[in-house]
């Protein structure tokens, strides 16, 4: 079977999802469900995601050592796997945010001038 990108990855620029996850975890440890809803809300529902596609991303981030996991109990007393940001992940987030902003600025520069010209 050929690999298929998860919908979220295919609809958002590469690495964006990773950054969003890291961003959510800055606030403190959270489990998958919380992270999915946080991203959905945080992006003002622009990023419509199948929540399941979040999990491969979590797995990837954990493999890279940017986040770590532990089993805990959710607010409504369910067993859940929590993720927290590691120091490496924190650094990565900073780096990626900077880079992301640069890209956005660059794209903005490319797109705007043509609009501003009389």
């Amino acid at each position: 079977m050929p690999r298929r990108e998860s919908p979220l990855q295919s609809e958002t620029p590469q690495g964006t999802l990773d950054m969003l996850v890291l961003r959510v975890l800055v606030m403190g440890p959270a489990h998958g469900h919380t992270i999915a809803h946080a991203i959905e809300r945080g992006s003002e529902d622009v990023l419509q995601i199948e929540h399941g596609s979040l999990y491969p991303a979590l797995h990837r981030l954990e493999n890279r050592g940017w986040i770590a996991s532990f089993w805990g109990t959710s607010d409504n007393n369910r067993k859940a796997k929590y993720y927290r940001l590691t120091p490496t992940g924190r650094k990565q987030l900073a780096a990626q945010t900077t880079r992301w902003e640069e890209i956005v600025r660059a794209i903005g520069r490319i797109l705007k001038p043509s609009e501003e010209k009389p």
Partner: protein
Amino acid sequence: MSWRRFFRRAQWDRDRAEELRSYIEIETDENIARGMSPQAAHRAAHIKLGNTVRIREEIYRMNTISPLDALGRDLRLALRGIRRRPGFTLAVVLTLALGIGANTAIFGVVNGVLLKPLPYPNASELVSIKHTAPGFGVPVLRMSASQYFTYREEGRVFQHLGLYGDGGQTITGLGEPEQARALVMTYDALLALGVQPQLGRLFTEADAKPSGPAAIGVARPLILTHAYWQRRFGGDRSVIGRRLLVDSNPAEVIGVMPDGFRFLDMKPAAEVISLITIDRGRLTLDGFNFSSLARLKPGITVADANADIARMLPIWLNAWPAPLNLAGKEVIESWHIAPTLQPLKDEVVGGIGDILWILMATIGMVLLIACANVANLMLVRSESRAHEFAVRTALGAGRWHIAREVLVESLVLSLTGGVLGMALAYGGLTMIVSTAPTTLPRVEDISLDPRVVVFAVVISIVSSVLFGLLPAVKHATQRGQPLAGAARGASTSRERQRTRNALVVVQVALALVLLVGSGLMIRTFQALLSVVPGFATTGDVQTARVWVPPQQVREPERVTRLQHDILDRVAALPGVRAAAFTSAVPMEGPLRVWQQTIFVAGQTYAPGTIPSLRRAKSVSPGYFGAIGTSIVAGRDITWTDVYGRARVAVVSENFAREVWGSPAAALGQHIREAPTAVWGEVVGVVHDVHEDAVHQLAPPFVYWPVLMENFSGTPLAATRAINLVIRSDEAGSESLMSGVRNAVWSVNPSMPVFLVRTMKDLYDQSMARTSFALIMLAIAATMALALGVIGIYGVIAYVVAQRSREIGIRLALGAAPTQLKLMFLRQGLVLTAVGAGVGLVTAVALTQWMSSLLFGVERLDLPTYATVLGVLAMAAALASYVPARRAAAVDPVETLTAE
């Protein structure tokens, strides 16, 4: 990705599954809190999460080392496929096992004989020294003792340089007198080889000094080989220092060689090693009777060494006196002696390299044919899997994926064939080693060593690519083929059929090449058989050697009388029809035959030149009758001639024709072996004898009496080492030989009888090289023909099966069965014709490599080519006729209603 995760991925997966379940639970809880029914809440949660299996798969794949994982899967698939089709698998594996096994076996021989270094340290530094002498008319000139001294003392490139020769030595003082096979050498030959003794020491320079042990009454040093030490001394370690009588001289054992020690390719192996004693004061330039070996200094090339010897040759020419029977040094100068050094390995291996490489190429072709056959089988089989592959492609399998699966299956098949082939090769090698022709050197070095195993694995892999690549590519590229079409199987792709045809053409072409090769060998063998060797090869001529040491019988005439006495006793044995003796029997090797400059009375020789070199030996009266050489003119030598010391001679027919024009004209003429010697009268002319080998021309020959005055500088010369020649129906039997031994021992109880063999043995030995090549090529060609025929049969049978519907329609529409038969027959024959055409061109090009093996037949021998084409055409006709007949027998009703 890491190995740890790779092996723990099952646990990881369980972990993920639980995590996803927890999501569903939480989401369901929230949905219920929002007022949904539990059922709807659960379903909404699932929708929100998406396909959990796919998520888990994706994570699972992140943890795989995917090529490895895929390989495991493909392997399982391949094994399953193999189990499911035992017939197909058996056919493929057996074909490959034969091909790979035969190749591995021959490579084992090539490796042992040609590739492995000689079993001495830094064997690449070892060389043998020979010379060319274009002015002398012999192909190679070996080394003289005077050259040995000059090269050793003036040379700049040698670490050690030694001379050696072989012979027999009688060892007494150990019960029965025994002729031990002796290796004689200068002290430095073993040093050059770089070997160490197991016990005691090797020869030293001090041993070689004439004032040293070689002087009268002092024991000469002797080294024993391991086998002889075990046999005669039971491995007794106190053997060092023991005194023996060697050729009636005292000798002292100074060392024992280790078990694995072999001296070059000396056969039969030496039993004792003794020192050549050279009286330096009496040396002249000539006497090129020694073989030599030397170890070059590190970094010196053969070219450097040749240059150094070329530099020393003038020094040598000045330093030593001219030979006694030649006028002066100008004669030797006129020979234009030049060095030709050779790596010692080449000297040991000799001319066998040609045959072995030809065999290797031949057997390689058989493997190619086998691969073509297997490729065809795979294609046919994959036809039936086309539907499966089409379905899988439709389900998203990639091209590489399908190609890889076919390749893995090929690899499994060919490695299985390879393992089986290695077992076959082991058996084959054991057989080759035990029955190897005597012309095959270094048989002891042949084994299934790691290099041979690696070779087998490599050719297994290469084969799998060869026969797997075509089907793999075909499948991978058939994407566009509609599923429905593949399922019906009614139409065959034209291109697929073309591929199969091409494979058959290749097979037929290769088979033709091999058939031509073995056909030429058969013709060569026929030509050899039709050569009249000039002596009886019927198996009723027994020979054995007896030597009369000077220490026991000093006086030459008494030597001859003693030999005559032995002869009379042997002739009186029951069943013996004739008995005689000679200094050398035909085909026993060049060493015992004399090379003499024969001067002819009445011919003048320009100053500074000498007549050409002729072969000569001594023969007793009755020799020609006993050995089976007919007398063409004149008479035999008689005992009256011998004891009357009449210098008479018998010459060969070609000698007589060359010098005097006809055999009759030779009678009464005179010849002599040196310008100052006595003239000998030619009293008889005998049939030519192929003295060297069947495939070599019979050399002009001179036969002298066994007792002569003033012969080669000796006042009275007897032949001390004689070969008895005994005509008896019991030749080759132990009863005859025990009679012969008793006859010899009743005359003198301390004389050994050795080198027992029949003339048929010697003759067969001379044919051995050709028959070895013939048998191997014939085996290869038979395999090739069989595989080729199977190939043709397979293709035609397949076409018939595929087109049975069409055949049915044709028959229903009124086509004649004969016509249909012809149609398929024609198809088979056209394929064969194309293959034969390609094969002919290839054969004409390739057979030039086997010229060195041929005798009495042209490389482009028309009868061979015609016969081979005939055989091939017949085989092909048969192979296509059988399936073609099946086509004609098709029942139209059955085939048309089959679907």
